């Protein structure tokens, strides 16, 4: 297993958000975390990253317990994180955003390079010298993903990859995520776009009210009308 999350409980201040989430992601899989607004998807990813540490439960990355580790240690152990709101470094150029992540990578054997990210997202090549703060939302989205890959992660956590993208870009992104998986990076993504998840993910978990309600192969989830109606339809 690349990622094993076992019964984590996470709070924001006094409010309980994750009430015992458990899930697993195997090597080479693309796994989607689905659920309505406010279901706890982002919080799950933030818990794994150590940004909002769980109060209890266990999270293992490649068998190593990471609860209690701070985010830069989690990153060093091999998780790349692309947040929903992108968080591009605005004073760094596109290329510097990528280079810095590559420089910080503790997994030097990984083979992600700036050139390879540009091949995956050719639009980024055209804006390589532009400051991150001046990129469009879509460009930032791709840069956030490229930046996560530059850390040469064993596992990429991608929050809302398709949110706010034009349909054409969504299709390109879906293709990119398959490509990323083919390079050996395991992907765990959170998205509300069911169609996008069908194109990208092998397996899905459905989260609601802070716990996992259901899990299955992605195509089974979509064929199960009852489940889709109950947990996903907007």
């Amino acid at each position, binding site marked *: 297993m690349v990622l094993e999350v076992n019964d984590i409980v996470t709070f924001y201040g006094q409010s309980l958000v994750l009430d015992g989430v458990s899930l697993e992601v195997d090597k080479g899989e693309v796994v989607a975390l689905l659920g309505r607004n406010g279901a706890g998807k982002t919080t799950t990813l933030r818990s794994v990253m150590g940004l909002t540490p769980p109060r209890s439960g266990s999270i293992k990355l490649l068998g190593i317990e990471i609860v209690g580790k701070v985010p830069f240690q989690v*990153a060093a152990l091999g998780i790349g994180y692309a*947040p929903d709101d992108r968080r591009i470094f605005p004073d*760094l150029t596109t290329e510097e955003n990528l280079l*810095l*992540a590559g420089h910080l990578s*503790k997994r030097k054997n990984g083979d992600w390079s700036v050139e390879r990210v540009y091949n995956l997202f050719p639009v980024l090549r055209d804006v390589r010298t532009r400051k991150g703060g001046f990129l469009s939302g879509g460009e930032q989205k791709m840069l956030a993903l490229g930046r996560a890959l530059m850390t040469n992660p064993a596992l990429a956590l991608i929050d809302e990859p398709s949110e706010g993208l034009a349909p054409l870009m969504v299709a390109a992104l879906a293709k990119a995520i398959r490509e990323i998986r083919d390079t050996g990076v395991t992907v765990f993504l959170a998205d509300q776009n069911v169609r996008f998840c069908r194109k990208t993910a092998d397996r899905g978990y459905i989260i609601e009210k802070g716990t996992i309600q259901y899990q299955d192969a992605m195509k089974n989830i979509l064929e199960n009308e009852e489940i889709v109606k109950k947990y996903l339809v907007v």
Partner: protein
Amino acid sequence: MSNFIFQALNGLSSAMFLWLVAAGLTVAFGVCGILNVAHGSLYMMGAYFAFTSFQILGLNFWLSLVFALIGAGIIGFLMERFFLRRIYDQPIEFQLILTFAFILVFDNLTKMIWGTMLIIPTMPSLFQGTIPIVGRPFPIYNLFIIFAGIAVALIIWVILNKTWWGMKLRAAASQREMANAIGINIPMLFTAAFVFAALLAAIGGALSTPIRVCDSGVGGAVIIQAFVVTVIGGLGSLKGAFVGALIIGVIGALCTLYVPFIELFVLYLIMAVVLIIRPQGLFGGER
């Protein structure tokens, strides 16, 4: 005209002290988000350390500069590591209270160690003398200060724009959490950034000792000028700190020549006008 040029050059050399203090203030604020009211005290400690090693221990000028940097660096390290670190996530009032407390501590510390006597500076023999500029004798040391200030500006520029460390500072300055999540050891980076800021203040303080007196109140005086500079230039902007220091230094010097006695009035007027026209300062929002 020659009066004007001569006095503008004098102003330029005082501008460099303002710049060095404002630069450190800007780094600490821009990266760590700490508004360090005690930053002038780090300047003062730099001055006292340089004075001590030069005049009392008899080290040469350059070694006393190094001595001052090491001393202030250690103080900066202790301040960040044991105090400031605890209040990064607290409201800004906590920063003001804590760093103001440091002013009092440093003021009294200098009184306890060095006494209340005014310290009369001596010029290192290396820099004694003058050179003629527009037909008048201009102190070599002031010229040196101008070069030193510009050199420090260039060094900071290179560090920020051409080194990995500078790239980390720029990343963490605006996206602290994300910087952490791609693998930057934020607590360590912040300690280093604060020490760097302390070193900038200490260079200013140490370089001031041959021409200015050290006294235990200088920290508070210096920080007020530095605030004026950063308000004009834009808090958080190094370019702004540099330009603001030039404006205050040169215009201040020219005022003492042409309109003596209302010099301070003019400087605060400039600040007020900038605040009315551009409340974020000349380069506010840029870095």
